[in-house]
């Protein structure tokens, strides 16, 4: 990818052969990207997940801290449409009764089939805030009488489904926030190294080598340990973001440097320099657009790493602190196998982590192929 040339060998899409000659680089990328089903699917799923994260306030049936006494560790509620006699109803649930299992002497939950509690849509609720800003007075789902635990309840009787939704807003956006830090450090250090070259380049490259060769989890853990436990949620959030971002800029800086090194010898840069373009114009007008697509790929592939980092730290109790919820803090409840064996539903937030990371990887791979003019055809 040296000059922004039209890819002549590209097969015309619907709309005639000339279309590709006028298309911008981004349009070409988009057309190529669309062909990759997996990447497209990834974008679709992530769209849904981000939608859920943003609208958690109305999609979740309960507040993240709302406790249901007596229903601690309740399993996921089954949704029925047929009652005991086999009659069809609108979706409904049963309330839980306790029974002591005489073999294990454990309290078990059984459904009390004497009364049905229908599930309603768009139910009125206590006034609360959407995204902590917009006041709303309704929720998408609700029941009266018996609580609806789509993913079961935790050890304090809180609805895991609601908590997963609320947690997604922290987990899914921290990836972006941390990537901004990564991006700023990576692009400036990589830019300096690639543009100036020489000794500075050598030093920065050694630092990059160093950063990529040491294991980051112990480093993250020790840095996170230094965050005082009594800091407010927002401050902890920013501290964790900073810790995640500060450690993972090596890969990006390497890409920026490599691209700059190869580009600055190119003829069109030389031409621009000869007609007197300033350094800032050179960078903003000619250099940056040329590897913006590579940056995009790198950023997309860096986000899931940050999400995994936050999840791991919070899982260990070193990241986001309660009462704030993230997927990691939710998984913290199942830190040992005994708990998992008793309440496997507590691992459900982990499924969200995997799906999110997977989709980011699909999108990143799709973008990589789309950004590379040699795979077009």
């Amino acid at each position, binding site marked *: 990818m040296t000059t922004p040339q039209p890819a002549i060998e590209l097969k015309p899409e619907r709309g005639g052969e000339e279309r590709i000659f006028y298309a911008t680089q981004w349009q070409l990328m988009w057309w190529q990207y669309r062909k990759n089903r997996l990447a497209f699917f990834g974008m679709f799923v992530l769209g849904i997940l981000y939608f859920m994260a943003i609208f958690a306030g109305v999609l979740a049936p309960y507040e993240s801290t709302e406790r249901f006494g007596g229903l601690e560790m309740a399993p996921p509620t089954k949704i029925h449409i047929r009652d005991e006699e086999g009659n069809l109803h609108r979706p409904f649930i049963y309330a839980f009764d306790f029974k002591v299992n005489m073999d294990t002497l454990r309290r078990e939950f059984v459904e009390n089939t004497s009364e049905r509690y229908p599930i309603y849509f768009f139910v009125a609720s206590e006034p609360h805030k959407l995204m902590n800003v917009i006041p709303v007075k309704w929720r998408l789902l609700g029941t009266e009488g018996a609580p609806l635990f789509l993913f079961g309840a935790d050890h304090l009787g809180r609805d895991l489904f609601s908590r997963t939704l609320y947690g997604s807003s922290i987990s899914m956006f921290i990836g972006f926030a941390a990537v901004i830090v990564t991006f700023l450090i990576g692009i400036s250090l990589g830019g300096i190294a690639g543009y100036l070259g020489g000794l500075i380049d050598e030093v920065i490259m*050694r630092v990059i080598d160093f950063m990529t060769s040491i*294991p980051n989890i*112990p*480093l993250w853990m*020790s840095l996170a340990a230094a965050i*005082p436990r009594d800091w407010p949620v927002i401050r902890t959030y920013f501290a964790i973001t900073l810790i995640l971002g500060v450690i993972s800029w090596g890969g990006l800086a390497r890409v920026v440097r490599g691209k700059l090194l190869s580009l600055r010898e190119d003829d069109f840069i030389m031409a621009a320099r000869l007609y007197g373009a300033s350094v800032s114009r050179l960078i903003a007008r000619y250099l940056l657009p040329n590897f913006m697509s590579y940056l995009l790929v790198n950023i997309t592939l860096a986000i899931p790493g940050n999400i995994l980092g936050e999840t791991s730290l919070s899982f260990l109790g070193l990241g986001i602190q309660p009462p704030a919820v993230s997927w990691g803090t939710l998984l913290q409840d199942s830190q040992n196998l005994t708990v*998992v064996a008793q309440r496997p539903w507590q*691992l459900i937030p982990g499924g969200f*982590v*995997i799906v999110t990371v997977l989709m980011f990887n699909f999108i990143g791979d799709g973008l990589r192929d789309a950004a590379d003019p040699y795979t077009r055809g």
Partner: protein
Amino acid sequence: MLTFIIRRLVLMVPMLIMLSIISFTIIQLPPGDYLSTYIQRLEAMGQRFNEAEVLALKRQYGLDQPMYVQYLKWMQTVFNGTFGRSFLWQMTVAEVLSTRLPMTIILSFASLIVVWAMAIPIAIISATRHNTLVDYFFTFIGFIGLASPSFLLALVLGWLLYQVSGTMITGLYSQEYVNAPWSVAKFLNLMSNVWFPVIIIGIGGTAGLIRTLRATLLDELGKPYVTTARAKGLSETQLLVKYPIRIAMNPVFSTIGWILPGLINGGVIVGIVLNLQTIGPVLMRATLSQDMYLAGSIVLILSALTIVGTFISDILLAWLDPRIRYGAS
């Protein structure tokens, strides 16, 4: 070759110095002076300190002196092999880690072997049966392995194992062997438990290596020399083993540099989840109670080990591949 090794060794020195500075920064990070926090905590628990003791401790850590002196004092403990004192355990860091560090190294090494044992055959199968159901299946599994945090793998697979067989793997030994001296029985007991964490730690690295190996092998399989060999009547297996696989094996060594940090990462977290007798749980306790000498030393030791491991793999690679050997020197 010798110049290559020397060049590499010289490059390693600034890295290790940088590492020691970062580790020392970690020790200094928590707000306040850790000694006073520590004394406060102990006094809250009812222990008494006299002035002389506090002064002695202060002098030992050089807390009354400027930062670089403190750093040099700490480096001194690093070089005499004690790594300073853990407040939490009331012994030197070296003593805390004495049995756990070897176990961590053994586990990481075993995981590396597992990574190879899983990735190489799978990559060969995937590449030779390109775009078949088998290939898609392994690609899918690989993606899942790449996307799952290692603690989640440990929890899910541990739970599945429990559902299927009824055994729950926690720790490296059964209860009765934890503090027992080494014996054949203890060793067998270790072997019956250790495979589980080793596989889990390995899975993340395996997924990445499969992708690289498969891509390299696919590149090689499309080259004219493969067609030539086939045209000359070589059987498929013979042809595969003789040329493309040998070339495609290069990534096995060139990727150690990023697989090793991953294995250490996974080892720490899986160690915590499964409560293994490795460094993981110690680091966890140290960070939770802000025992920074211990935490900083662990970061230093684990990272230094990774750097040394990468160094060894670089030398192996140079020994295998003359292009690197001569290109570098």
